[in-house]
């Protein structure tokens, strides 16, 4: 990679790493793993930089590397990462719904990596089902079934089962 390429990569990392770290954090559930995952993904991006032709689609590329690295075989050999403890938070977090959010966060940590990735891409990154399918490398149908299964597991989680906000509207199906 030439000097201009290195500068462009560094500018990209400096500009985008805060947002990418947030996505990595939601995928892994704790900061240490998120930084580890993001650095690995960005290192792979650096090595592939000259071959990435669509620079405007860099976020999509890195997002895909993040997800595939997180769900890849060599990471699966580890136990599923535990989500970090819910911290004491000021302001809005003392609101009445903080308990629900904490319970949801804990429950997300019990999903499989693939389910969690589908949930993060759909509900945090706001990707469409087709975009999510491209990132995960699966069909749209599998995105639907994976997401649906993840939501069902969240609803069935003991900490959420009795909360009406986690329930489906009357007559709806998952």
């Amino acid at each position, binding site marked *: 990679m030439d000097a201009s390429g290195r500068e462009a990569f*560094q500018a990209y*990392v*400096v500009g985008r*790493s*805060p947002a990418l*770290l*947030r996505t990595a*954090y*939601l995928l892994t559930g704790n*900061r*240490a*793993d*998120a*930084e*580890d995952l993001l*650095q*690995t993904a*960005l*290192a*792979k991006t*650096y*090595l592939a930089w000259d071959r990435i032709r669509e620079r405007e689609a860099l976020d999509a590329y890195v997002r895909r590397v993040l997800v595939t690295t997180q769900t*890849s*075989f*060599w990471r*699966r*050999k*580890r136990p599923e990462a535990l989500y970090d403890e819910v911290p004491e*938070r000021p302001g*809005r*977090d003392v609101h009445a*719904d903080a308990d*629900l*959010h904490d319970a*949801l*966060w804990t429950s*997300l940590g019990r999903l499989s990596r693939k389910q969690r990735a589908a*949930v*993060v891409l759909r*509900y*945090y990154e706001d990707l469409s089902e*087709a975009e999510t*399918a491209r990132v995960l*490398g*699966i*069909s*749209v*149908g*599998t995105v639907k*079934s994976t997401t649906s*299964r993840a*939501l069902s597991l*969240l*609803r069935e989680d003991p900490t959420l089962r009795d909360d009406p*906000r*986690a*329930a*489906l*509207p009357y007559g*709806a199906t998952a």
Partner: protein
Amino acid sequence: MTPLDAELRRTLANRAAVLSPSPDPLAGIEARVSRMRRRRSAATAAGALAVVAAVALAVPSVVSDRGTTAPDRLASATPTGRTSHPSVLDPAKPWPVRGDEQLLAGGALDTVQREWARRHPGSVLTPLFVQVWEPSAQTEMAFVASGDGVLRVGWVVVGEPGPAFVQEETATADSAYQFALDGDEGVTRLYVIAAPDSKVAYAPDGVTYRDITQTSVTHTDGPSSSTTTSRSGFGITAVETAGARVRVTASDGAVVYEADARGTPATAAPANLLDWPSRGTASAGPSVHDLGVAFTRALGRSDGAAVEYRPLFTGDTDSGVRYTVGQAWFRGDPQAYSVSYATGGTDGPHFFVGPVTPSAPPVLAFLVGNLPGTSVDQLVVVPAPRSGQVSYDADATGAFRPITGQDHFDGVVLIDRAKDATADRLEVLNGNGELDNPTYFGPVAALLCGLKECG
């Protein structure tokens, strides 16, 4: 949007929002790039390409054809050393596994061994070396297998679709084995695996040897930590293969192996090998060995070439018929064929060989017939990954019926098809579900092509 959807969005946004940025995001990346590059054998400052990685594990004995050109291990399994030396691999008690042994936990080894047993009934696979190849982030194993009367060595990559045996060959007991693999960015990786405590040397020019005395092996200790240890007799280095030689010296000083460095494997996969994942029930499916025999007969080959097979789907019918669809090819051949094989039907095993697989087919389809107790055939539709809805029009009336596959089939659908069907049609939407842009819309018969004709 359900209440849970909304709460989920808020939860994720709130959690992400409290995360402070890393103070120096570039520092960790540079360290990782350096580590990856060390593994990749990067170009030197002078511009010379470094290339191969050699893993030297080892303990052989016996003097080899020192000073002569040893046989290429790709083409010959002739041992270079006497088979009596303690360094020679004993198939009944192979060398201990080296590398990151933790990678074998979690079912990885079991998966590889089961797939191997399916291919070679009676043969038991034992790993010799295991690592994660960083550019691909995939686990790889060098292995030896025996138990069915044939000694084999090989290299398997364990990826998302399942184990891929990228190198496999019959062998004789020897003091070292070479594995030449495609590396990153067009370079070859060469691994030399010998008995523990052996020394491996490498001569780039074929004459001047230098010892590969140290090998760095990284072990993963936890979610964010790892240790790197260097051990003599277990080396990874960067070398070029053309004109190079490899030599292994046993702990008693005897040169027990000497040969030309292997080049890029001649057993490279065919260009039209699909990178689709294997779907269906991985443990099901008939004997791959029998499939290979049937494939050899169908193609009229009599030169004893080994058959490779890559399943795209395996499954069982309710009536007990086991079947698999995938690609088969003769090792070293440039092209693979679409094939299917079923056992347990009313009239014995049924093998079907299709045409040379197109380079990027939108869908493959096969018929499983001879089903006991039913008057229909089963049409197995294997769409390309990331395809959308599959619909079936049984009698060309335009009444397409959406077909729902089972979740774990990941897009593959099974359709009951009348034995006398001739005009039925299939529609496969693209991943975005666009009705006006299907990846396939046409007769089923056009998908059921044999070697020479369709239908």
